[in-house]
Structure formats: structure tokens, C-alpha cells
């Protein structure tokens, strides 16, 4: 069986599972059955994808008699698809494990199970599609299945609005992708990707298709300013679906962008990298600033996805710049940084969403201001969540650091570029990347510190208990992977080599042969990093210090009430909250990203009413871009409303006028 058939049969099995899930959904055994089968299928496809990725296959294709009659449905698996198949199926398998655990306590399984399997199938299909029709069909299938999952708990506050904004943005994204493919296919209608690769569009058409792809795939990935749906929709879904949407579906969007822009959209212009870099850096900074201001744990994680997408786009933008100026090895470095960050982000973001889900089902709370002290009640969840926090904050020796380090190394190659715009842009992008990485660390110190540390702020947090073993298994596996990628990054970088070489025509030097498994993106003398040694050094130094002091000084320990400068307050409300933790950062950066309204109502001396502090935050982009747009559409639809109440005579004249106009346009077409 060829590899394409293998993956297609996996997709077919998932679709069959969706149908099965719909029929048995109300039975008590349904969740276990569906999640177990989905886990088996995902695991098989994961293994298949890993074999494909490491085996270095040629990218064979298959044409099925489906889809558009004169083209058929093309499917193909190459190194790039294989890489993203690994991401999708790894995330999918972990989500199934979570489903076997926490997912079984779902209140309305009939609203989750069928769409869950369908969602997995849709994402997998996007990756193997090899013509525009199947691509867009799978893309829409993925969007609609995930929309149904967002709407699973549609009676909860705001979920219906989240679903509405999501479906509008998703349709808009698909529309722009449709236009991009139409431009690339040309008047002859060469919708198969092979035909698009062979055709070479004029620079103007290619540039327009590039911009449309940036908007279309970007709206799914969540780049600023198209991110508005993401922090609404991702948290609204059940937690393992949130993990899939944030950790995996955004990567499918990145795949779409890479596939179209790096491979299909004909002769590239050097300027392509400029919008990608600007959008990437802006997305990274604004995403983390928005995240810092959140106190809803799942929404914070969703905003962080926006930040990480920005980091991935920075890598992709640099790769475009290097490729346009004929520097394949530098382009391979930048592209590898972006793709590795996509993989890394899928690991730790799924992990963090599982942790948030475990907290949600243990306490019924997503609001960090009502949590606290969970490390005592849920020690294992806390540990796994901590690993995720360290990894996403780009701290060594975990995986997030490696991909950001590679991105910095790529930025340091930009002075070689012969373009002034890029020379000025690159250090600014680097500074913004560094700023958002540092803010991310602050954000996750807050997320972990307020949720898991301190004293419980409510009874719900006090009564929490540890989650089940399937959920823990899912989290621990991902946590272990975060560490493994962090300490032996060379192996993973080498695995990305084939994908880089088909896209930019070059690859990073092989890392596997370096001494002590260190990585050296350009040359050992220029820069190298060894996660394994750093990890071992830290472990050795910490245990040396601990054992030395315990052995030769003192190991006595006494428990006592907290000191707190001699005046401890018994009320847990006196602890720092999520809001107060972020206050200094809000004060420094707030004016950039938000419209901040603080109102302090301080009673005069002698008055008995309490003092009040009100804080209002609103997203500048929503106010400046979407509000006017919505207003315009409402006004326009009110105007057009008159069309509903015309007489038959007037309707006939409207039709006649339209016909004449169209004929005139056709007649005057060159």
C-alpha cells in the first residue's frame, strides 16, 4: 500500500468513526469507544507519518475520480505534508487520551463525539490534498467541524457569539483562499497543485495571490488583525478541542500558507517577506500583551497562540527574504526555525490546554482570580503545567528556547541581505521578538503562579482533586517530549531537512554528527547550543549544592505560619491577583495595545460607602477595524432592505438593468 492510500484510508476510518459516533453518541460506552478508536487511528497515522518523514520518500501522488469532474481529486504526501501529519496526529492522539479521561465526563457527548472525529479527519485531509478543490473542501470541512465543536456548549454565555464570529471569519478566510487559488490556476483552470507549480504567473498576479493567501491562511492561524475570533472560539470548545484548535489547527493554517506561498505562488518578489515580517512581529507582541491582560486561563492560552503564530511567521518571513535573494542555507535555517517552532508549539500548547481543562473540571473555574493553591491538590497536573509554562516561555533546556534561538540566529544573518528595507526591518523584528519572549515569561509566571501557587481564593479551588490517569498520561507524554526536543534538538532539526529542501532548495548542515549532540546552525565557531549539556549541568549543579548543604550544614526544617513582614493577613483575598500582577506591565505597555479605562471612586472621609476601582480594557483593533465594518454592513443592509419591497414592475427593470450592464461589460472586455 502506498503512503497516500495509507493516510487516505486513515481519513476514511476517521470519517466512518464520525458517523458511528453520531449513531451511538448517547450510549454510555460511546466516549470510550470513539476516543479509543480515534486514538488507535491517530497513533497509526502518526507512526506512518514519522516513517515517511524519516524515510525520505519521493512524494508519490494518487488521483481519485472525485471532486471536479475534469480534474479529479489529487492527493499526495511529501516531506512537508509528512511533517504536519506528525503534528496533527501527535496532537490528535494526545487529545484522544485526554478524551478517554476527562472527556468522558462530557455532559452532551452527542454534540462532541461525531464532530471530534470529523475534525481530525478534516485536518488530515487538508494535509494530503494536492489540488485546490480538495484542499478547500477539506479546509471548509475542518472549519465547520471545529465550529460545531465550539458550539457544543452553546447555551453558555458568549459561546454563541464566539461561534458566530468564528464562522464569519472562517468563511472570509476561505473566500480569500478561493480567490488566491483562482488567480494561480489562471484562465485555463489548472486547479491541480502540479499544474500550479508548473505554471508561472506574472509577478503582479503572484503577488496578489500571495497577499490573499497571507490573509486567508492568516485568518485561520490568528495573525493580527485577523485574530479576533481566536480568543473567543478556542476557549469556548471543550478543553481537548481547544488544545486541537490552538495547538494543531493553527498549524494546518501555517501549512496552507507555506504550501501556497513557498511552492505554488509562482515567481516571488523580494517584498513578500516585508508584510510577513511586519505582521509576524506585530502579532507576536500584541498577542503576548493581550494574553498578559487576561484572567481567564483558557483565553490567556488562546491569546498566547496568537503570539506563537507571530514567532512562526517571523521565521517564515525571514525564509522568504533569504530565498528571494538566493541564500538557500540561510533560508533553510529560518524556515527550520519556523517549522520547529510550529511543532514545539503544538506540544506545549496542547499540554497547557489539557492542564487548563483538568483545572476546569476539578474546580469548575476558568477564572484565575477564583483559583490558587492547586499545586497542593493537583501536584501532578501542576508539575506538567509547569513544564509547559517553562517550555512556552522559551527557557532552556526546553524546546521553546531552541526554536527561538534558531530564529535569532537567522536574524543575525540578515545583514548579508542586499535590501535596505530588510536591513532596517530585521533588527526591529529581532527586538520585538526578544521583547515578546520576555513578556511571555512574565505572562506564564502569572498564569502558573496565580492558578497553582499561593492560597486557594475560593472554596471551589480548595476542594479540587487530582485528575484521572489518562489525562495525566496525555500531559506527561507531552511534557516529556518538550524536554526531549529541548535536549536533543539536532535530531528534530535533521528530520526537518527534507521539508526545507523542497521549499527553499537548501537545508541546514546535518546536526546528528556534532559532538555531544549540540546544534550549530551555521558553523560551530559562529554559534552553538547544547541542550543536553545545559540540562546535565543544571541538574548536577543543583543536586551538588543541595547535597553539599544538607550534608555539611543543616537539613533541619520547621513549618510555621508565613512571615509576611510580621503582619500576615489571614484572608486569601490579600494575595496578588492576576490583575494586580499584570498592573505594572499594563501601565507601561497598556496604551500601545489597549484602550484602558481606569476609574477610581474614592469616598470622602466620613462617607461609609466602599471605594471602587473599575478597569475597562478594550482591543484597539476591534474598535478601529471591526466596529466600523460592522456598522457599515448594518447601514448598507438597512439601505438594501428597500429591495425587498419593490413591485413586480420595478423588479423586472432591475433585472433588465443588471443584464444590460453585464452585457456591456462583456462586450467591452478586451
Amino acid at each position, binding site marked *: 500500500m502506498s503512503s497516500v492510500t495509507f493516510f487516505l484510508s486513515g481519513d476514511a476510518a476517521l470519517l466512518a468513526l464520525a458517523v458511528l459516533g453520531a449513531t451511538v453518541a448517547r450510549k454510555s460506552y460511546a466516549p470510550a469507544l470513539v476516543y479509543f478508536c480515534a486514538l488507535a487511528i491517530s497513533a497509526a497515522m502518526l507512526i506512518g507519518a514519522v516513517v515517511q518523514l524519516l524515510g525520505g520518500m519521493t512524494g508519490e501522488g494518487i488521483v481519485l475520480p472525485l471532486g471536479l469532474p475534469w480534474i479529479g481529486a489529487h492527493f499526495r504526501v511529501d516531506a512537508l505534508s509528512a511533517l504536519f501529519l506528525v503534528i496533527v496526529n501527535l496532537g490528535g492522539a494526545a487529545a484522544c487520551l485526554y478524551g478517554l479521561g476527562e472527556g468522558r465526563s462530557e455532559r452532551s457527548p452527542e454534540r462532541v463525539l461525531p464532530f471530534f472525529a470529523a475534525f481530525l479527519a478534516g485536518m488530515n485531509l487538508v494535509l494530503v490534498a494536492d489540488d485546490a478543490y480538495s484542499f478547500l473542501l477539506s479546509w471548509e470541512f475542518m472549519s465547520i467541524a471545529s465550529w460545531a465543536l465550539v458550539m457544543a456548549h452553546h447555551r453558555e454565555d458568549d459561546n454563541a457569539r464566539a461561534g458566530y464570529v468564528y464562522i464569519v471569519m472562517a468563511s472570509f478566510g476561505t473566500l480569500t483562499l478561493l480567490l488566491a487559488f483562482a488567480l494561480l490556476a489562471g484562465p485555463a483552470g489548472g486547479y491541480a497543485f502540479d499544474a500550479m507549480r508548473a505554471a508561472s504567473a506574472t509577478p503582479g498576479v503572484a503577488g496578489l495571490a500571495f497577499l490573499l493567501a497571507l490573509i486567508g491562511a492568516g485568518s485561520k492561524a490568528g495573525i493580527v488583525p485577523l485574530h479576533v475570533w481566536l480568543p473567543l472560539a478556542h476557549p469556548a470548545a471543550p478543553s481537548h478541542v481547544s488544545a486541537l484548535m490552538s495547538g494543531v489547527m493553527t498549524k494546518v493554517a501555517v501549512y496552507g500558507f507555506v504550501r501556497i506561498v513557498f511552492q505554488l505562488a509562482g515567481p516571488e518578489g523580494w517584498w513578500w517577506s516585508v508584510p510577513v515580517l511586519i505582521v509576524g512581529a506585530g502579532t507576536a507582541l500584541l498577542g503576548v500583551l493581550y494574553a498578559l491582560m487576561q484572567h481567564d486561563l483558557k483565553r490567556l492560552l488562546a491569546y498566547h497562540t496568537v503570539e506563537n503564530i507571530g514567532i512562526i511567521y517571523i521565521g517564515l518571513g525571514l525564509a522568504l527574504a533569504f530565498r528571494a535573494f538566493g541564500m538557500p542555507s540561510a533560508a533553510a535555517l529560518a524556515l527550520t526555525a519556523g517549522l520547529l517552532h510550529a511543532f514545539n508549539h503544538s506540544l506545549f500548547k496542547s499540554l497547557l490546554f489539557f492542564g487548563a481543562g483538568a483545572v476546569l473540571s476539578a474546580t469548575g473555574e476558568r477564572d484565575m482570580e477564583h483559583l490558587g493553591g492547586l499545586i497542593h491538590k493537583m501536584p501532578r497536573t501542576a508539575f506538567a503545567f509547569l513544564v509547559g509554562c517553562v517550555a512556552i516561555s522559551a527557557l532552556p533546556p526546553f524546546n521553546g528556547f531552541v526554536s527561538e534561538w534558531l530564529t535569532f540566529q537567522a536574524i543575525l544573518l540578515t545583514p548579508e541581505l542586499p535590501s535596505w528595507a530588510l536591513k532596517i526591518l530585521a533588527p526591529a523584528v529581532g527586538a520585538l521578538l526578544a521583547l515578546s519572549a520576555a513578556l511571555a515569561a512574565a505572562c506564564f509566571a502569572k498564569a502558573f503562579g496565580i492558578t497553582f501557587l499561593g492560597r486557594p481564593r475560593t472554596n471551589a479551588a480548595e476542594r479540587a482533586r487530582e485528575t484521572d490517569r489518562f489525562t495525566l498520561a496525555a500531559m506527561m507524554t507531552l511534557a516529556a517530549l518538550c524536554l526531549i526536543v529541548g535536549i536533543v534538538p539536532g535530531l528534530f532539526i535533521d528530520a526537518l531537512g527534507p521539508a526545507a529542501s523542497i521549499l527553499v532548495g537548501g537545508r541546514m548542515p546535518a546536526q546528528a554528527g556534532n559532538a555531544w549532540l549540540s546544534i550549530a546552525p551555521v558553523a560551530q565557531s559562529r554559534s552553538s547550543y547544547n541542550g543536553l549539556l545545559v540540562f546535565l549541568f543544571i541538574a*548536577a549543579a*543543583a543536586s551538588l549544592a543541595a547535597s553539599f548543604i544538607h550534608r555539611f550544614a543543616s537539613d533541619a526544617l520547621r513549618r*510555621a505560619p*508565613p512571615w509576611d513582614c510580621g503582619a500576615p493577613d489571614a484572608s486569601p483575598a490579600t494575595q496578588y491577583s492576576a490583575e494586580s500582577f499584570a498592573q505594572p506591565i499594563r501601565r507601561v505597555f497598556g496604551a500601545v495595545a489597549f484602550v484602558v479605562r481606569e476609574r477610581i471612586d474614592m469616598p470622602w472621609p466620613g462617607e461609609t460607602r466602599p471605594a471602587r476601582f473599575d478597569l475597562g480594557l478594550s482591543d484597539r483593533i476591534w474598535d478601529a477595524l471591526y466596529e466600523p465594518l460592522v456598522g457599515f454592513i448594518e447601514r448598507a443592509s438597512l439601505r438594501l432592505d428597500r429591495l425587498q419591497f419593490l413591485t413586480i414592475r420595478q423588479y423586472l427593470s432591475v433585472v433588465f438593468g443588471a443584464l444590460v450592464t453585464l452585457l456591456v461589460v462583456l462586450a467591452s472586455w478586451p
Partner: protein
Amino acid sequence: MAVIVDLFFQLLQMTLVIAVAPLLTGLVRATKARLLRRRGPPLVQPYRDLVRLARKEAVVADTASWLFRFVPYLVFAATWVAAALVPTFATGLLFSWSADLIAIIALLGAARFFLALAGLDVGTSFGGLGSSREALFGALAEPAMIVIVFTLALVAGSTQLSTVAAYMASSYVGLRVSLGMALVALFIVAIAENGRIPVDNPATHLELTMVHEAMILEYSGRHLAVIELAAMLKLVLYISLIACVFAPWGLAIADASVMDRLLGTIAYLAKLALAGVALGAFETSIAKMRVFRVPDFVGAALMLAFLGALLLFVSRTLK
């Protein structure tokens, strides 16, 4: 045989930084005391403090978790590993290639991250206050550091600190505006990262002005000793960093003879002493600034570093 010698020098560097760290802090304190016309404690007082703290029993708050007891060692280990990778008396030591300057900064970032968590762990308002402010300062100082690295890396063609130091010690490097800007920015970052006046006062226990001290308020005994030692190490690290990049005189370049390395050690100790006295004099002559002036101060470092890096990025074509 060569490996054993290399290993010896690597271990020597690791013990050297730990051994001199308390002495340097003692020197800064003694300088400040003398300038204020006090006699001040003897130079070795920090050693005595550390030993005394380590021998006491540790009092841990009821509400503290396992993380609270784990963090001091982790912070110490991350700082120590980072400090051991900065060239002190010689470049090109055995493990100098295992992490470059960006990784060293990230290691310090990891130490800060865990210390901020420890501040939140007990659930007191002071701890949260310290963590929150440290998060802000770190969020500004770390990017400034990274941009300084851009400048150094472009000048020396490497982010490996050992290579950068060797390049700076060579005669190829001239006087450059970018390097001057990076130096000023690095000074500001070093002051902010070490919590020195005017950003934070290491001697204060006045609650509204403290940052670092507020985070570690609940620590006692051996845990406090380890954290204090880590803070001292961090000061040594930053001084070594400035010294090896901007004052590489006497630094033994890779494959130097044992004699050169001994001379390098003496030069290094002299540089540390000079920096300690200068820091004490600087701290005495300046007043602490309000917390919300600090972002402007550190932000200036970020801007300076950025201008320096931008000049280099652009001037690459002019060659």
C-alpha cells in the same frame, strides 16, 4: 592529558566564580561604608553570613509547596552554569561552546522565572509585589540584552561569548559607535538585573521600595543562603561579562600557556576589585528612583542597544 588540563581549568573557573562572589559583595559594601564614613563590616563578612545562614534550620511557611524548597537550588544552579560559561581569565575553555550568549541570557531568565514563582508560592502580598515588579523589569532588561548580543555578534561574527571575547582582545576591532552604545546599555541592564541602586536597593527592607528582597521575604536558613549566593554570583557574572567584552586585557586566549592563564586570573581579580569599588562609589553617589521611573531607565537601554544594532545592520553594505 590535554583534556585533563582543560577540565582542570574549567573546574577552576567554576570554583573561582563561586569563591570570589561573596568577596566582591563584601568589597562593594565596604566601599559604600567607607564613603559614608562608617567603618563597615570586614570584607569576609558575606562568607560568615552565608555559613551562619546555612547552619540554621530553615523555616518554611505552612502554605508553601514543594516548589518553594526546590527553587533556591534551581536558581543557584542556573546562575552558576551561566556564570561558568562567561570567560573570566581565559577564553575557549572545555565547555565554552555548550551555550552561547543568548543561552546564557535565557538561563538567567529561567532563574528569574522560578524566583518570581517562589515569590507567589506562599500567597502573601509582599511576595506577589516583588514578583510582579521583577517580571516588569525582566521583560524590559532581557530584550535589551538580546539586542546588545546582536551588536556584539555582528561585530565579532559569532554569538559564542568565548569567540566574541577573543575577537575583542585582538587588534581587529576599532572604536565603534555601536559598541559604545552597547556598553552604556549593558551598564544599565547590569544595574537593573542585579537590583542595585538606582533600580532597587539590596540593603533595604523598606517594603514599598523593594523588589528582589520582597520576592525572597519568606526564605530563611539554607534556602536564603543559596539564594543570596546566587545573587552574588549574578553580580560577578555581569562584571565578568562587561570585563571580557569591553576590557579583555590580560585575558588568556584559547590554547594559551598555563602561565598566561595564571596572569589572566590575576588580571581578572584586579578587574573585579576595580569594578566593585566603582560600583560602590556609583551607588553612593546616586539616589534610588521611583518604581515607575525604572521602565524609562531600562527602556533607554533597550533603545540605545537597538540604535547600536541598527547602525551595524545598515552599515554592513558600506564596507
